[in-house]
């Protein structure tokens, strides 16, 4: 049997694209509805709701009417996690600017907006706290009565014998500040719920990465059977994690569709998205390390403080950033003694939730700044200190207990150093400094946990433990292959990548494969698309299911061609006796499987298999290198070069993989230099438009050079590792290290991101340079 692969590994053009470039994509906001809703949001960060009054003629609902809907209260059964509850509409108190107070309904969007503006809100303001450090003070305002001291998660990890460890050698410390980010998909969130009078079911079409989990959550909160709710994720205009968490607005919209027995739509505007969707990365990471005489890291002590906002996101809980930080802080470095305290603190700010990279942009910045500071302390180059500390032998168990199956940390770093031509750069850097031009080069080495199944998630103790994915794979009587998956892509090109995997197993072309996703009526239960998992896990599941179908096809072909099944190969849409021209078309086999099933006494009729895949997970890795120039007059930063050497195992579709890297790096550069959600001291959002919160344009993002290493892993059936988040994880540290290299002659250090001109100016001033 030939196992020739023809499609995997090729930059096949995406099956998704022809409809999208024609403007024929179907997005949630495209659906017309009978009723449109507008949410009335709190203008104050903390307060008691005294009165909410609707304008004459407006239909309005508040918490009183939705009293039967349970609050969102995601659970974690470990780490002393303090669960906090979020009513879908605020009932007595509001906890951040943007908190949902009421919903108004009209048959026209503009009219609903008019009504919402006329709602009279009487909220008695209370003292608010927006900063995590302040929230820990003994006299700080308390955000939730259930969370005294505002502490919702406090985890301490120590390697065995840590306390007895003598701290010898050179101590290097580093504290970084990661300011608050918004994922900012270009499509804002939206939901459309339609009640069907005949079946009494509701169909919720919405911008989600996780349709099955949304169905479970919403049905639970409203108290309806899951079978009475169908959730559809149509084309979704980017998510980056922001669309994996449950939006309370979705629950309200479903409730309204049932209550009004009609169709109801909500379309988030950009202001709402920036102030009241889900934020992330508001973190401080403090490291204290001991290095031995040879520059090897021996002991690492970490302290992570995460501002989780006013509520906890479903399903991940408010512990997601602290937990991820603690587990993955050691990164690609080989050392044994590790202690880390990670805390999550509630404040009167928008709820924090996963955003592509989750915590790792901040912890990678901390570790990579630490390495550069250690290099200076030892008089070594940044690459030499890393050479002495990177893990080189695999499998390796990290100081936090994670097993790295394979990795090319050192090789990836050497690859970018090779590509950049270091000596030439150093000559240019030295030559330009006397002219007042400050060039800098920065490195960032990291590993990225990908494709992990339920055992890895179970360690977190989430009440909802994701991990596995399943697929139903069928060939219809006309010979078209249909894969129904629980994963829910929203721009990743997963349909194309899966079609390539299936095409190779079944000897067809990818355009003969239809991948169905994002519809709970049409697909088996699954967890959706997040955490760099879908290609590995859904990809593994389709691989298994396709091999089962293949077994059946060759058995049938063997019977029909009167030969042994082992002699049959599937290729070019045919089942062929290997080495001969005796063949039968797959379309004929398909027709026969359904309509002449009696010819195969030992096979079940039809062509349909299912498979579940639940891997332990793996780690991809990369090294990023940035060359920047800092203009010390304007404090503007330009990125001259950006190089990535990555190892994500086998690349199923290199074009798609490179697209993921480029998009991720662009978001990482944005994180490093431009984007920041800013609150006033009283908790007002100061960045509620795209003129204040600044996603970069094509002028700010350089051409990104990519080098592939392809270490195939046994930890994944397809050999692919996944790389969805790596770009965002590594880029900020490379950019900040480059800025610091540029400013080193001025004795200026920047350990906060984004490194805006204002922050650079302040640092230059503090150093007496300006």
């Amino acid at each position, binding site marked *: 049997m030939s196992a020739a692969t023809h499609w995997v590994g090729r930059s096949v*053009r*995406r099956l*998704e*694209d*022809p409809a*999208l*470039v*024609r*403007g*024929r*994509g179907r*997005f949630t*906001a*495209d659906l*017309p509805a009978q009723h449109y809703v507008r949410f009335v949001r709190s203008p104050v960060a903390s307060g008691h709701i005294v009165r909410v009054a609707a304008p004459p003629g407006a239909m309005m609902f508040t918490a009183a009417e939705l009293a039967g809907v349970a609050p969102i209260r995601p659970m974690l059964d470990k780490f002393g996690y303090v669960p906090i509850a979020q009513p879908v509409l605020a009932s007595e108190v509001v906890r951040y600017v943007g908190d949902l107070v009421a919903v108004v309904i009209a048959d026209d*969007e*503009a009219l609903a907006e008019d009504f919402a503006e006329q709602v009279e809100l009487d909220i008695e303001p209370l003292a608010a706290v927006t900063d995590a450090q302040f929230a820990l003070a003994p006299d700080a305002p308390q955000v939730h009565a259930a969370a005294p001291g505002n502490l919702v998660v406090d985890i301490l990890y120590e390697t065995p014998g840590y306390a007895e460890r003598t701290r010898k050698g050179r101590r290097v410390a580093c504290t970084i500040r990661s300011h608050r980010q918004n994922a*900012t*998909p*270009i*499509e*804002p969130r939206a939901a459309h719920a339609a009640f069907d009078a005949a079946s009494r079911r509701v169909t919720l079409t919405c911008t989600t990465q996780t349709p099955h989990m949304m169905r479970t959550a919403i049905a639970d909160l409203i108290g309806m059977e899951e079978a009475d709710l169908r959730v559809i994720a149509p*084309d*979704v*205009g*980017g998510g*980056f994690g922001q669309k994996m968490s449950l939006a309370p607005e979705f629950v309200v919209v479903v409730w309204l569709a049932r209550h009004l027995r009609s169709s109801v739509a909500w*379309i988030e*505007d*950009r202001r709402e998205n920036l102030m009241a969707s889900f934020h992330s990365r508001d973190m401080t990471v403090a490291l204290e390390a001991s290095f031995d005489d040879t520059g090897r890291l021996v002991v690492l002590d970490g302290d992570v403080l995460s501002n989780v906002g006013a509520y906890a996101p479903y399903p991940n809980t408010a512990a997601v950033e602290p937990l991820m930080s603690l587990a993955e802080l050691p990164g690609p470095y080989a050392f044994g003694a590790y202690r880390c305290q990670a805390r999550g603190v509630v404040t009167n700010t928008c709820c924090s939730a996963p955003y592509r990279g989750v915590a790792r942009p901040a912890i990678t910045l901390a570790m990579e700044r630490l390495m550069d500071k250690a290099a200076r302390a030892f008089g070594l180059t940044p690459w030499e200190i890393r050479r002495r500390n990177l893990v080189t032998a695999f499998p390796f168990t990290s100081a936090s207990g994670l097993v790295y199956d394979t990795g090319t940390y050192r090789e990836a770093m050497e690859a970018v150093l090779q590509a950049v031509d270091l000596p030439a750069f150093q000559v240019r850097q030295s030559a330009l400094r006397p002219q007042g031009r400050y060039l800098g080069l920065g490195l960032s080495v990291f590993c990225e946990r990908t494709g992990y199944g339920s055992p890895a998630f179970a360690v977190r103790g989430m009440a909802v433990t994701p991990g596995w994915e399943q697929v139903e794979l069928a060939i219809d009587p006309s010979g078209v292959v249909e894969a129904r998956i629980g994963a829910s892509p*929203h*721009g*990743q*090109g997963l349909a194309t990548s899966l079609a390539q995997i299936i095409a190779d197993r079944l000897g067809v072309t990818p355009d003969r494969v239809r991948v169905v996703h994002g519809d709970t009526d049409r697909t088996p239960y699954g967890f959706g698309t997040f955490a760099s998992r879908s290609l590995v896990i859904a990809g593994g599941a389709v691989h298994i299911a396709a091999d089962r179908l293949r077994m059946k096809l060759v058995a049938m072909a063997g019977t029909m061609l009167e030969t042994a099944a082992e002699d049959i190969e599937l290729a070019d849409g045919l089942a062929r006796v290997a080495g001969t021209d005796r063949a039968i078309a797959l379309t004929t086999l398909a027709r026969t499987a359904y309509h002449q099933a009696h010819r195969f006494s030992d096979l079940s009729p039809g062509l349909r298999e299912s498979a579940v895949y639940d891997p332990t997970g793996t780690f991809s890795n990369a090294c990023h290198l940035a060359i920047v120039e800092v203009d010390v007059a304007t404090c503007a930063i330009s990125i001259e070069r950006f190089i990535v050497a990555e190892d994500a195992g086998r690349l199923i579709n290199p*074009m*798609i993989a*490179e*697209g993921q890297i*480029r*998009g*991720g*790096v*662009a*978001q990482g550069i944005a994180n490093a230099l431009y984007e920041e959600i800013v609150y006033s001291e009283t908790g007002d959002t100061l960045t509620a*438009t*795209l*003129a204040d919160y600044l*996603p970069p*344009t*094509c*002028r700010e*993002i350089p*051409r*990104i050079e990519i080098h592939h290493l392809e270490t195939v892993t046994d930890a994944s059936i397809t050999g692919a590792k996944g790389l969805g988040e790596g*770009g965002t994880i590594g880029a900020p540290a490379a950019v900040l290290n480059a800025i610091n290299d540029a400013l080193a002659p001025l004795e200026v250090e920047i350990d906060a991101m984004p490194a805006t001109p204002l922050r650079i100016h302040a640092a230059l001033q503090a150093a007496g340079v300006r």
Partner: protein
Amino acid sequence: MKLPARLTINGVTYDVQVEPRRTLVDALRRDCGLTGTHIGCEHGVCGSCTVIVDGSPVRSCLMFAVQADGCEVVTIEGLPLLMSCDTKAHDEVSTLHPLQQAFIEHHGLQCGFCTPGFLMLAAAVLHRDPHITDADLIDALSSNLCRCTGYQGIIDAVLAAARAMRVSNSER
């Protein structure tokens, strides 16, 4: 109060009754059923709603529908017409504009939400000035936001399409 507006969109006349405050993008999407034009910010920054009005790229969230009364509007649904409308009228848009083809070939899109806006922006710029320099073209593309691609695929696609269109023009 509603006012009448006559919009010519992709060569088809639409007589709509709209409130004066109705934006062009809402009229396109809700009154004309052309949902290929997307709304990303409604304050004129992201450019997802870019359409061509009388030959110029316009953010349709910043223009009222009544302002487009009597104007020729081209949306993503009619983009291919820009290449072939000289020769004969199309009732069925079946072919792809070189820009659309190039976006597919150069991986110029991921989620596809900003894509119609980028295509219409690039089309307006290239049809107005087929010999625009690469640098000016990239400068024009910085008008719009994309969150998925990191822009390289978009730039590569538009530069490739610009070359293809110049060749096609010179062969005519």
